[in-house]
């Protein structure tokens, strides 16, 4: 059947002059390419080696490469339409590799893929399908960029992108057109030359523009740090984080040059979405501009002209940016690296930050409260003390030990454990895990806390920990590794989900929820609450159904995914399973991997008032708009942020309960600990 289809036309003989011209053009194009690309490569290679980088185990790298680069999975999943269009352009490029090689080879009479042969013919049709989709795709992308213009792409119109789109379109069009003429037709030669010129123009443009990602991003994805939001250890006595150019590592430089300026990171960033200075895309481009202007050997500070200290300290380390980035850029280590540079050298001056650091230099908890208060709580709740015989060490954390609402969560979780007959105990003394100082970049205090805790756990012969706080879980399991081997740890959602079938479902229904009194010890009390008009645009219009007190309504629960449980730990189903013990689940528009931060992470809950809108208010409004009667949380920090947001809202705010409290609801009364 394929015999009836048209054959791809290819000029057969090239004159000496044509050969000479072609060779000259190829050399010029390659020179243009290398002039810039060689420089970029040199800057990357001249950057400091990544001290903790290991190529092995390689399996995950290969998988990421296949999934994210070859399958374009991330590109498509997060923005389906433009993602698919992009994928077709990418796949067409891959399919065209062979065609292009042959295209150049025929000039010298050494073509290897004859369009007339069976294999060649099949291959050309195969490529033609991609060419067709690619042409449509690139046209679509052109329309999006220049006519639709989503705001994430920035205000500046990128003419080079338009030109590149045109070149790609010409490449595809000339290829497709060649099927409709004969070899001998003079227009076959014309098409060949247009195709060639487009190709040779395209090549040198690549390294001068963001299309550099074409070459770099496969390497960036393959050479990632190995796990999500991983903060690399400092190396040697002169490493204080990212202070100057000399601190930029090869991975950071490679990533900075790989950015394709798509703005996905910024689109999902809670700071950028609430009117703050921070814009993760600009952070990456700031590092790139630094490298372009000063290079990796400069001792000029990284913060100042190219990136702002203020912006860097507005990051909640929610990881949405890193999760979204299609070219494998790891924002969190870069942002935390810049903070480390500022804090470890004392350049960051912040009233609240200093207070937190001093509290943890001298005391045991981030809230700056006397540990006697924790002892009192343990006594009052009759929590057993860990003595080495119990299975679990119940880690309270600062919130669980000192924050009134956090304590309620611990109490509820203890009730459930008692009901299940689990043996557990709490440590007599506990220090903050160091999560807030770690994310704020204070390596000195973090090390002190990690080492003291590791020692205490070893002394008490703790084998397994369970905690109600995803920040504690993350910090103990991943960040402490720098200073020792932490015991096994899990989040209470994982524990509870394992026993979900042993827990009674609660039959209670929600009535009109009362408003909650804030027991927040470090609330930003001085600030005025946001007006309802300040809600996120996408949720502003949804009315909140206020359940009438006299008519019990079936409990509708919306679960908010904490960043440190979801994106950081990949735990999404377990807390939902637990929450569904107490009612019917509904989902917020942004959930699971796309969950929107509560605003507390990265140590920010301990810092002063936010500029712009409060992240917590935006998220709280989104949760309220689902019409749920209860908001389920799985992190005491999220809980405290929403508590404040709902307090500000006053009447009609939904109930706010941790999944432990939801799980404890169905327990028979009198099961007190």
């Amino acid at each position, binding site marked *: 059947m394929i015999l009836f289809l048209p054959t791809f036309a290819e000029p057969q003989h090239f004159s000496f002059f044509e050969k000479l011209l072609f060779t000259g053009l190829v050399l010029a194009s390659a020179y243009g390419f290398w002039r810039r690309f060689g420089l970029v490569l040199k800057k990357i290679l001249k950057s400091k080696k990544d001290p903790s980088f290991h190529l092995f185990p390689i399996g995950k790298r290969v998988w990421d490469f296949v999934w994210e680069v070859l399958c374009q999975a991330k590109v498509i999943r997060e923005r389906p339409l433009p993602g698919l269009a992009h994928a077709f352009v990418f796949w067409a490029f891959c399919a065209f590799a062979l065609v292009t090689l042959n295209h150049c080879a025929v000039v010298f009479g050494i073509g290897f893929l004859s369009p007339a042969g069976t294999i060649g013919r099949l291959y050309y049709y195969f490529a033609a399908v991609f060419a067709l989709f690619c042409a449509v795709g690139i046209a679509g992308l052109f329309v999006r960029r220049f006519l639709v213009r989503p705001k994430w792409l920035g205000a500046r119109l990128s003419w080079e992108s338009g030109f590149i789109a045109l070149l790609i379109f010409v490449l595809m069009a000339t290829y497709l057109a060649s099927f409709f003429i004969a070899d001998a037709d003079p227009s076959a030669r014309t098409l060949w030359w247009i195709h060639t010129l487009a190709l040779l123009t395209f090549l040198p443009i690549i390294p001068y523009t963001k299309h550099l990602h074409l070459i770099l991003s496969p390497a960036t994805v393959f050479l990632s740090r190995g796990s999500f939001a991983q903060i690399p250890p400092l190396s040697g006595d002169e490493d204080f984080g990212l202070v100057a150019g000399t601190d930029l590592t090869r991975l950071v430089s490679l990533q900075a040059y790989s950015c394709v300026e798509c703005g996905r990171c910024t689109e999902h960033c809670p700071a950028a979405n609430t009117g703050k200075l921070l814009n993760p895309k600009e952070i990456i481009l700031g590092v790139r501009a630094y490298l372009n202007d000063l290079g990796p050997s400069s001792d000029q500070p990284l913060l100042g002209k190219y990136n702002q200290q203020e912006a860097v300290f507005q990051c909640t380390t929610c990881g949405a940016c890193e999760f979204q980035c299609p070219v494998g850029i790891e924002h969190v280590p870069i942002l935390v690296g810049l903070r480390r540079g500022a*804090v470890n050298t*004392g350049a960051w001056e912040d009233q609240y930050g200093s207070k937190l*650091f001093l509290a943890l*230099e*001298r005391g045991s908890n981030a809230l700056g409260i006397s540990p006697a208060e924790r002892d009192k709580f343990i006594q009052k709740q009759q929590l057993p003390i860990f003595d080495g015989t119990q299975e679990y060490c119940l880690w309270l954390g600062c919130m669980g030990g000192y924050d009134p609402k956090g304590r309620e969560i611990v109490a509820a979780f203890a009730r459930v454990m008692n009901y299940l007959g689990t043996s557990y105990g709490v440590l007599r003394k506990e220090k903050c895990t160091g999560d807030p100082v770690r994310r704020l970049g204070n390596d000195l205090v973090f090390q002190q806390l990690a080492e003291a805790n590791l020692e205490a756990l070893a002394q008490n012969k703790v084998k397994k920990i369970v905690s109600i706080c995803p920040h504690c879980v993350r910090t103990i399991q991943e960040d402490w590794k720098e200073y020792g081997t932490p015991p096994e740890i899990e989040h209470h959602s994982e524990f509870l989900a394992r026993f979900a079938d042993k827990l009674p479902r609660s039959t209670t229904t929600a009535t009109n929820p009362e408003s909650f009194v804030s027991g927040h010890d470090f609330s930003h009390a001085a600030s005025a609450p946001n007006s309802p008009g300040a809600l996120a645009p996408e949720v502003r219009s949804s009315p909140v159904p206020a359940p009438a007190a006299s008519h019990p309504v079936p409990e509708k629960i919306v679960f908010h995914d904490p960043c440190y449980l979801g994106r950081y730990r990949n735990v999404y189903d377990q807390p939902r399973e637990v929450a569904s013990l107490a009612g019917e689940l509904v989902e917020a528009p942004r959930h699971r991997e796309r969950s929107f931060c509560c605003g507390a992470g990265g140590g920010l809950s301990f810092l002063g008032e936010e500029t712009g809108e409060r992240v917590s208010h935006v998220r709280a409004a989104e949760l309220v708009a689902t019409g749920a009667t209860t908001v389920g949380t799985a992190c005491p920090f999220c809980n405290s942020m929403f508590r404040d947001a709902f307090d500000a809202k006053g009447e009609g705010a939904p109930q706010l309960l941790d999944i432990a409290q939801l799980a404890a609801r169905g327990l028979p009364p009198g099961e007190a600990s």
Partner: protein
Amino acid sequence: MKIIVAIKQVPERDAQVRIDAAGKWIDESNLQYALNESDAYALEEALQLKEKSAAAGGEVVVVSVGPERVGQTIREALAKGADRAIHIVCDDLGLRDALGVARLLAAAVKPENPDLILTGLQSEDLGLGQTGVIVAELLGLPHATLILNVEKTETGLKVKRELEEGWFQTIELPTPAVLTIQSGGNKLRYATLMGIKRAKMKEVRQLTAASLGVDAPPVVVLEHVALPQKQKSTQILPGTAKEAAAALVEKLKFEVRVL
């Protein structure tokens, strides 16, 4: 300006203190130590004075009396920015009275010829509030206590003292002088990794009572130490709400004396 800051290492604020077997001092095993709070403010004042007159040059030297463990606190002070340190090593700090400690400090400080000597108002453990003043006396220098703020003037110093009930007093005095610093006058700086690394290279000179030629027996002898007795009693006030409230007011006024 050369500033000496006398600092003391005390049990950490969160420490659970136990009395030792002899009942003469606290059990020091398993205790965590930290820099005495008002000394931290004295150090901060010194560092800020030095930074303010950075052009004129200056030096901040910390001096501390105590056993080996005090080295840790000295390092922290160096990490925050002190230039060098003098450690008067002595293992029987608990047995020395304020005069004994002041003699050691004065002997170590004297050859330094400082322009200013700062120390905390009092220690968090013994709380005598004497040491700084006695050092001034021994060195024959003017002194002022309860200082919140120090300003360098043409002729000497202008300092702000904290009096009772929100009153302040501003006085001037010549240098060299001794000031004991009240907590809260400044914002403390946090310790940094860079500071700790740099501190490793700074000089810590170790002296002893013998090498200073100061070894007099204490004039005040500590008899014994005891934990405060815990007293807790609950009374239920009977009667109607009104009667109970009246009885409560009565008790608050005349028994507890808080009204």
